[in-house]
């Protein structure tokens, strides 16, 4: 049995359907992420799990028991708020002790558990500080400690890294993974950052307009997006409009207008004549000088129109014969050589036949 079951959850605000018939199963010990652009309903789901909002239809079950009608304070789960929501009039230790006091723990146990949890987030020396004396990263740790100290069944994290600067965010991501592994508590994480979701999660549910578009492991989402939205939302991707010309077992023959035949793979039975898009990650495309030979089936001539030197990699925008721009990402791995092509160079772009995915419309 899943730890948390969300069944056909729906929430309306006036005429707006913020959450539409969402069903999710979250297993114990999982780091689960709700990912989507702002307004997609992910925070609303989190607030319904926490008990600050009630669904119009559907239910939420924890360990098989419905949470309907249970007020937030009686739910065995805690939330880490985007603003941290630290109590400004209490010290760090006071903040962390708060859930233990509310649970009626003894003074001795409270002192022990607060000490342990402070050690867990490396803030032993800040116990007597007030929130306004802490840095953003430290506040973040206190909020985590406060949410974890009572060993909840579930920790909900609402964009907890949103307020941190880029460098600190990466550090906190690493800490968060380690922390979750150490305490073994199930995390449900809400974010709009696909990079953050990919880096942290065991599984991700990608949401749009109140619906779950795809729920899968990060690498599956990245390499096998279920549809155009997911492909486009996660990472950079080239989308080429195509028509299916042939389909045999795993081999798929696609035709792009003005470009020609593209060889791809797909295990599904697909009807010839169907229209869709071919999705291809930039880092799976190789760019060769047009006279260099490449033993790849998919090879198209083009001209470099723009390039973006990014240090470790270079992004090439190549105009193909049909006028479409295709983006390719090449590592600058050769010693002594910054980049391989210049703007205006005639080149050939190539990729393996299993590099891209065909997506139905």
């Amino acid at each position, binding site marked *: 049995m899943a730890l948390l079951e969300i069944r056909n959850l729906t929430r309306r605000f006036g005429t707006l359907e913020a959450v539409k018939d969402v069903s999710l199963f979250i297993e114990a010990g999982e780091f689960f992420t709700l990912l989507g652009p702002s307004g997609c309903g992910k925070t609303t789901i989190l607030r319904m799990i926490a008990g600050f909002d009630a669904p119009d239809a559907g239910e939420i079950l924890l360990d098989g028991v419905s949470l309907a009608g249970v007020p*937030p*304070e009686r739910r065995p789960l805690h939330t880490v708020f985007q603003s941290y*929501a630290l*109590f*400004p009039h209490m010290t760090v230790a006071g903040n962390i002790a708060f859930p233990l006091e*509310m649970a009626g723990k003894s003074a001795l146990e409270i002192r022990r558990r607060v000490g342990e949890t402070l050690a867990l987030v490396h803030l032993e020396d800040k116990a007597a500080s007030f929130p306004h004396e802490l840095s953003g990263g430290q506040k973040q740790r206190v909020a985590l400690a*406060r949410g974890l100290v009572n060993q909840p069944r579930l920790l909900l994290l609402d964009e907890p890294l949103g307020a941190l600067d880029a460098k600190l965010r990466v550090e906190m991501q690493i800490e968060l993974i380690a922390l979750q592994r150490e305490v073994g508590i199930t995390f449900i994480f809400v974010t709009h950052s696909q990079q953050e979701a990919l880096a942290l999660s065991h599984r991700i549910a990608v949401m749009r307009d109140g619906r779950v578009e795809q729920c899968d492991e990060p690498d599956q989402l990245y390499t096998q997006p279920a549809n155009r939205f997911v492909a486009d939302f996660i990472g950079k991707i080239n989308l080429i409009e195509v028509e299916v010309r042939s389909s045999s077992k795993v081999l798929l023959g696609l035709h792009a207008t003005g470009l020609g035949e593209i060889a791809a793979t797909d295990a599904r039975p697909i009807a010839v004549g169907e229209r869709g898009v071919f999705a291809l990650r930039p880092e799976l495309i190789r760019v060769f000088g047009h006279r260099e030979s490449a033993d790849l089936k998919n090879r198209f001539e083009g001209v470099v129109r723009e390039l973006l030197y990014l240090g470790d990699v270079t992004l090439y925008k190549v105009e193909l014969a049909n006028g479409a721009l295709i983006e390719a990402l090449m590592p600058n791995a050769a010693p002594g050589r910054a980049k391989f092509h210049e703007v205006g160079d005639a080149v050939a772009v190539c990729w393996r036949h299993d590099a891209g995915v065909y997506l139905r419309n």
Partner: protein
Amino acid sequence: MNRPPPSPRPKGGGDYGSPPKGGSGLLAGAALGRPGGGAGRFWLWAASLATYAFLYIPLAVVVLFSFNDSLLNAEWVGFTTRWYVKLLHDDDMLRAAANSLLIALVSSSVSTVLGAMAGLAMHRYRPRWLPFLVLTPVAMPEILLGVSLLLFFRQVLDLSLGLFSILVAHITFSIGFVAVIVRARLAGMDESIFEAARDLGATPWATFRRITLPLIMPALMAGFLMAFTLSIDDFVITFFVAGVGVNTLPLQIYSMIKVAVTPEVNAISTLLMALTLTLILAASRFAPDVLKARQ
């Protein structure tokens, strides 16, 4: 409030290519807002100082003559504290002072509780009718509140006027001030801390006691002191609802200055001024915006 940072200002009009054309007098320096704007700046300062003088000289005269050793407030004779000593032996005055303190204490306590509730309700639940009920008594001319309560107590409740009617009147106009201060305090806080408390296991009552109450405490203190000052200072409304039996300090001063100008009035005025000044400054320490709330 979004105060613009003090911006570096040009040293002279010449920096801008087109020097000021024929600007003169008060406006030349003022319009530019330059610290060293020459003649214009001088006139701006002069006008402002004159206005400050207009505000302070009359009060300074009142205080000064409370120490004047002469029954006539006409010319300075010599220093004395005998008017203050005389005050201490004036039974009417002492009774009025005791009444004023009692009324102020009770009415400010009650209006702090009711005002805090109103402030919380306006911030959190936003009922439409409440701001109207709470703020109108503050905004309308005092005389209207006074006569309506006079009519209500005498005609409808058929009560004789006295302590009770004064208390009710003072509470009615103080609620608004407390509510505004409390609401301002709540508006400046992150709403999610109240949710966080619930989320971490606190019942609504525990959330109020452990989180909300400590956080609005400065506003409650400021509101209480504000209400206390308003009550002890109020003349107009008290004048209508006091009846014949109960006297307060402002009413006592009124009946004295209607008759004559005496140094004793200066003395009690000075004392009252010192008291309210202290209270207001204390209130503004708890909530810096409280002074502005007074308007």
